[in-house]
């Protein structure tokens, strides 16, 4: 800091050296030890074990065979597609619904504080509890949803038992549970928009729709990218809700990578499931790194 007040431009190496100096190197050791014991060692150990046939007692090195086997899994392709669908559907809906709710909850309406907490409340409830509750509600013949529909003469579908529908039903529950968080992020983003813009827009005679489209939406892009990134990663590695509601079923219809991995682990194929985790890690990196770069670049243009 002091360097910048000095006359002339100090070279970069010097600045770095000055910035680093206040703390001696061994200050980092506690963090480094914790980080390596809890993160680095397991990461590299799992990279190794993903190359073995592992019984937890002994392991036999088999090269890349686990990866070949995992990618050969007939349900894996379905799981991959499902994972991406699930992540896209949940993060898309959370953006749309979250933004709309946030706009509503930042306007002058009755019971705003109460409504805000109602929207946020599902975020606090345990995911498994939510899953079990909705499984009961979505029962094809005795569930409250279909019984209510029956009152209006509509034959409700088998929300969780129809192979074509199960994944989307779980995604909807995920949105119900997670939209509160997106809303809170959006509320923070909306409140941060200076009122000047709206005043200027009003002077120019903007309609409420134009207000939303040309002022609110562009100016809350940081919130949008946060919501998309968070919910997309959350969607990619989702497991608890799917497992609580369908266990990947019926059959393999709502399997995601995480549930495929868990089933391999459950069956005692430890090496194979570790290989699956490596695949999941790579997939998340491949999808999320470009996505974040894209969202951040757009932000820079503002």
């Amino acid at each position, binding site marked *: 800091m002091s360097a910048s007040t000095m006359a002339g431009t100090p070279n970069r190496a010097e600045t770095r050296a000055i910035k680093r100096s206040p703390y001696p190197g061994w200050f980092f050791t506690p963090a480094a030890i914790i980080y390596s014991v809890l993160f680095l060692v397991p990461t590299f150990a799992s990279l190794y074990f993903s190359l073995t*046939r592992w*019984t*937890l*007692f002994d392991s*036999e090195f088999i090269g890349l065979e686990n990866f070949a*086997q995992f990618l*050969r899994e*007939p*349900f894996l392709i379905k799981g991959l597609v499902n994972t991406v669908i699930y992540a896209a559907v949940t993060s898309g809906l959370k953006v749309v619904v979250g933004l709309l709710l946030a706009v509503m909850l930042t306007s002058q309406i009755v019971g705003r504080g109460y409504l805000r907490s109602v929207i946020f409340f599902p975020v606090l409830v345990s995911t498994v509890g939510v899953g079990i509750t909705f499984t009961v509600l979505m*029962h*094809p*013949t*005795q569930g409250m949803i279909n019984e209510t529909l029956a009152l209006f003469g509509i034959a409700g579908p*088998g929300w*969780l*038992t*129809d*192979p074509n529908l199960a994944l989307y039903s779980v995604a909807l529950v995920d949105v119900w549970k997670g939209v509160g968080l997106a809303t809170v992020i959006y509320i923070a983003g909306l409140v941060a928009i200076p009122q000047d813009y709206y005043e200027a827009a009003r002077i120019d005679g903007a309609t409420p729709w134009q207000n939303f489209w040309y002022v609110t939406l562009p100016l809350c892009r940081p919130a949008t990218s946060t919501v998309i990134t968070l919910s997309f990663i959350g969607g990619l590695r989702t497991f608890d809700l799917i497992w609580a509601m369908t*266990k*990947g*079923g*019926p*059959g*393999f*219809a709502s399997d995601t990578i995480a549930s495929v991995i868990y*089933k391999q*682990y*459950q*069956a*005692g*194929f430890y090496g*194979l499931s570790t290989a699956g985790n490596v695949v999941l890690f790579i997939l998340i990196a491949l999808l999320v790194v470009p996505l974040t770069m894209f969202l951040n670049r757009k932000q820079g243009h503002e």
Partner: protein
Amino acid sequence: MTKTKTKLIALMGASTLGMLMTASAVQAQQSGYLSILVDNGPQSIATMEAWAEAYKAMNPDVTIDIEVRPGGGEGDNIVKTRLATGAMADVFSYNSGSLFQAINPTQNLLPLTNEAFQDGVQDSFKSVVSAGGEVYGAPFAPAMGGGIFYNKPIYEELGLEIPTTWDEFMANNEAIKEAGKVAVIQTYADTWTSQLFVLSDFYNVLAEEPDFAEKFTANEAKFAATPAALRGFEKLQEVAEAGYFNADFGAATYADGVRMIAMGEGAHYPMLTFAVGAIAETAPDYLDDVGFFAQPGDSAENNGLTTWMPDSVYVAANTASPDLAKDFVAFIASPEGCDIRNEAVGATGPYMVAGCELPADVPPSVSDMLPYFQEGGQNAPALEFLSPVKGPALEQILVEVGTGSRDAASAAALYDEDVRKQAQQLGLEGW
């Protein structure tokens, strides 16, 4: 904390040993602490609790803790993980047969080969809890059959006969459907229940291909390429396509299925005979309304039952009190243990222990099963007792067949692919 506890248990174990040595020919009183892990089926819990109570009454210095674990795949996971991490209870119940082979018995379990109680245990049971020349288990329950429960009042009302061929079975189903009733109950909320049509068909597979199990283990026979073995998959597909299932088959649970077959909400429920105990528990007044027959094959002359060996109790290799654990297991596998079980949960099938007897008034579903086991009756063990190879995804694959999203041939091919992983994990030759 854990260390002191272990030491304490070790001390207790040592004192047990000491007492054993000082005690002479008289029935030695046991003392010490014993932890037990049992699956969460109401039958299993009730039985284990009754045994523990009786054992504690005989040995007042013994403390017993019973822990409960889930069944199915979740239970496999817990048992394997706890064994692998050395955190298993002293005594635990688990499957015999192929699942037993998958928990690495020679490393994880205490051999019980030379215990006196093994003299009374049937050889057919010992063979499914043996590995590397040692016997590791004692029967936890009576033997079972896999077949089809039927509702007697519906059969009487419609004047139906017990089917001895698959065609007769399908004709019965058609008549039941025409009468506006549910012909076949399926309960896919508990996915394991989807496997019965395939697993219970194994008597019929062996009738046509007597060496299927050996060839299957050696990677020489495949479900998809063996017409007799493929039949089980086809049978499920036929029943599903004919629309015989209950409306909520995708969301119904095993408990629902048990209730439905007992109360006559459905006519047939393919299931293992341990469900007799569950019926006695949930709908005791309807126990006499439920009968049982083997899953029919294609010929009436060769009609037999696919049998299941019961689960077993094992002793963990690293138990702190091996003698107490062995003594408790011996108690379970004694005629006295069988009597206690009869009292606690009723009779569900023939016992595997010499001197164990069924009470005179067994429910009809049990008496329907007994002839298959008796002299001249025809039965054959299920595949999982003849081969260590069982794929973990069979239940999901069969749910797909039952819901109509996959046909029998491709399901069998998919299952053949699934078992490869298990065979490789076990390190079998030829895979």
